[in-house]
């Protein structure tokens, strides 16, 4: 909380959300509208887009605010996830703007991996289309807790309540079949600014919250708070003159308190937490996401890649993984090769033994396993590891349930994995 110049500001932390949809759905205009109406756009940016709009003979085009790199402007495409920022009196917001068409899986999965909420944009004239279902499916796969369907371009159909209701019905039918639980709907006009930050006068029949109100009030209470304690060791140091080594890391789930009985994986030795340090102070406990240094009662050999957990809630080590793998690289998966798998701070050699089936994001159906996974493919795979990792299922813990695959020949990150 802060009191600047007498204005009380209540700080509810950060909400990360992604926006999915194509340029045609008015996604850039929506983001421009959010930034513009929350005063995140400043005069020089506005002047620049006003000049460009004028040159093109258009009215002020808010979509130009999210205009990206030279290569994109030349080719008229967006190639990557862009991050944008705004804040209201209640929250700081981080938008991951995922391009709709090209490489939508790769971009959606990247944006979704850190999002608390997804806004799916639907053009009211076209209704729920294949792309909407794909995006919703990926958001659901990545475990985003909240889904908001923003039905855009209401101005083009005379703000018809019936058209909105039809899309709500359509989507709810799909959501039910797909197991998607938390969905909210809001009719908007990004162009006119209706029901985004301001309610406007054109949608009197809609009594729900504006899009911004949804963003400001969405619950981010993290399932990780109540999950078992997981502390991947990032770095080990023994300060000059100190008696004990300190294990630096971040509480990635649950919490830890002084005196807790813990186990250090992979060796499985039990000991007690004797100190929880930060730069400022020694603490009696550390909550979710606290970046702390732990000290342990017994001088045991602990290094980066180890994980400190509560003894009675330890994950079992596994060398065989059953995972959903999203292939991200232009070079397809080669089942004959060995890859590096990074799970939390731990890196191990991995072999993808078998592709069990391919998952078609468009039809939400399983398909027979192909010989290899290509870029944007999602497959269910069986992986053998050279050393064990200490994994949880992704649906229970998206930190200890996720991993990336690195190609040692190029050092590229080639795939993202979710433990099943």
């Amino acid at each position, binding site marked *: 909380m802060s009191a600047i110049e007498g204005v009380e500001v209540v700080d509810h932390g950060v909400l990360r959300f992604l926006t999915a949809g194509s340029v045609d759905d008015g996604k850039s205009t929506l983001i421009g509208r959010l930034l513009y109406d929350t005063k995140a756009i400043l005069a020089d940016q506005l002047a620049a887009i006003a000049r460009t709009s004028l040159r093109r003979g258009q009215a002020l085009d808010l979509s130009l605010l999210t205009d990206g790199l030279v290569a994109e402007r030349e080719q008229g495409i967006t190639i990557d996830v862009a*991050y*944008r920022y705004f804040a209201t009196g209640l929250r700081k917001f981080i938008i991951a703007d995922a391009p709709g068409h090209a490489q939508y899986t790769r971009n959606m999965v990247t944006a979704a991996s850190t999002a608390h909420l997804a806004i799916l944009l639907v053009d009211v004239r076209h209704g729920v289309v294949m792309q909407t279902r794909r995006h919703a499916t990926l958001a659901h796969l990545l475990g985003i807790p909240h889904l908001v369907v923003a039905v855009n371009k209401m101005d083009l159909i005379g703000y018809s309540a019936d058209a909105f209701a039809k899309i709500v019905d359509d989507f709810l039918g799909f959501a039910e079949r797909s197991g998607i639980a938390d969905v909210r709907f809001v009719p908007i006009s990004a162009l006119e600014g209706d029901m985004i930050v301001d309610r406007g006068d054109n949608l009197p029949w809609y009594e729900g919250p504006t899009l911004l109100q949804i963003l400001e009030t969405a619950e981010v209470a993290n399932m990780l708070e109540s999950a078992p304690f997981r502390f991947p060791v990032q770095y080990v140091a023994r300060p000059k003159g100190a008696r004990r080594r300190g294990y630096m890391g971040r509480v990635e789930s649950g919490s830890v308190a002084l005196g807790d009985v813990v186990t250090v994986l992979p060796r499985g030795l039990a000991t007690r937490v004797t100190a929880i340090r930060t730069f400022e102070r020694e603490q009696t406990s550390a909550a979710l996401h606290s970046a702390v240094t732990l000290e342990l009662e017994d001088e045991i050999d602990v290094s980066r890649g180890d994980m400190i957990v509560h003894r009675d809630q330890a994950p079992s080590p596994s060398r065989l993984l059953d995972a959903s793998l999203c292939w991200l690289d232009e070079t397809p998966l080669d089942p004959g090769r060995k890859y590096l798998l990074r799970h939390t701070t731990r890196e191990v050699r991995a072999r993808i033994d078998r592709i069990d089936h391919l998952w078609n994001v468009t039809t939400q159906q399983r398909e027979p396993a192909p010989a290899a996974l290509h870029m944007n493919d999602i497959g269910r795979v069986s992986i053998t590891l050279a050393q064990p990792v200490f994994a949880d299922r992704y649906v229970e813990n998206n930190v200890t349930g996720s991993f990336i695959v690195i190609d040692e020949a190029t*050092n590229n990150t080639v795939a993202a994995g979710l433990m099943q």
Partner: protein
Amino acid sequence: MTEALAASEETRGPERTLRARRAPDADHLGWLESEAIHILREVAGQCRNPALLFSGGKDSLVLLRLAEKAFRPSAFPFPLLHIDTGHNFPEVTDFRDRRAAELGERLIVRSVESSIAAGRVVLRDPAESRNRHQSVTLLDAIAEFGFDACIGGARRDEEKARAKERVFSFRDSFGQWDPKSQRPELWNLYNARVGPGEHVRVFPISNWTELDIWQYIARERLEVPSIYLAHLRPVVRRGTALVPVTELTQPRDGEHVEKLSVRFRTVGDITCTAPVASRATTIEAIIAETAAASITERGATRLDDQTAEAAMELRKKEGYF
């Protein structure tokens, strides 16, 4: 804000438990700080020979505080590196030296001046901005010390070319950034692996905005170089910018020198950094002005970004920060 926090920090006893249980996610600065410390520790854990770019500017002094939070009471697992254009404000370089000494950390300074003397940088005009030329000196320093990671204070909200950049951003052996083939970056799993001659740039405060920086400086009570606070300075009006009158930046014919109360929002090369009119003499007053600002940080103060719509993108491809 700062008073309330400082009071509870000094309290012992029951208050201590209360503070200890406060979750980082409870406010946005706590969230950002936790993310940044995690990133810095990943650099320490993954990289063989990293360096932290420290100029004395506000973003890099926030980085230093975050490094203290990540590694104290141990020494930093990296030296500090500054690329001195030779056109820096003396208040900032003095601050840089003093801060490094206070922290007891090693500071490496490499200068564009030496790159010019060695013929590595060729100026078309002796008075031109050396901002762009820093890239050569930086890449030479990276090669000289064999750094495999450079931690920098760039933020994604600064400029649109930065909006798509990764937290761990790969540079090839020419130091180039290729926006079209960046490594995917998911969850908080960062990939710092590089081959010989390659390196990564790491941006722990990618997700911070200018306002977040000032709020954090206030919360942490960080000292900043004096030129960030309002002071009287001779300037000329050039276009929409105020240009400071210095040895390097002389008034042009017909320009009228005025003494105005100004402050700098960014501090870079003297020849391309302009102050804004301001009466903010405290951090709290800067926060109030920033919250109400109507011009972006770089729009108001960086003459080098106004030369072309894609100026930053072009510089970055050449190895710029």
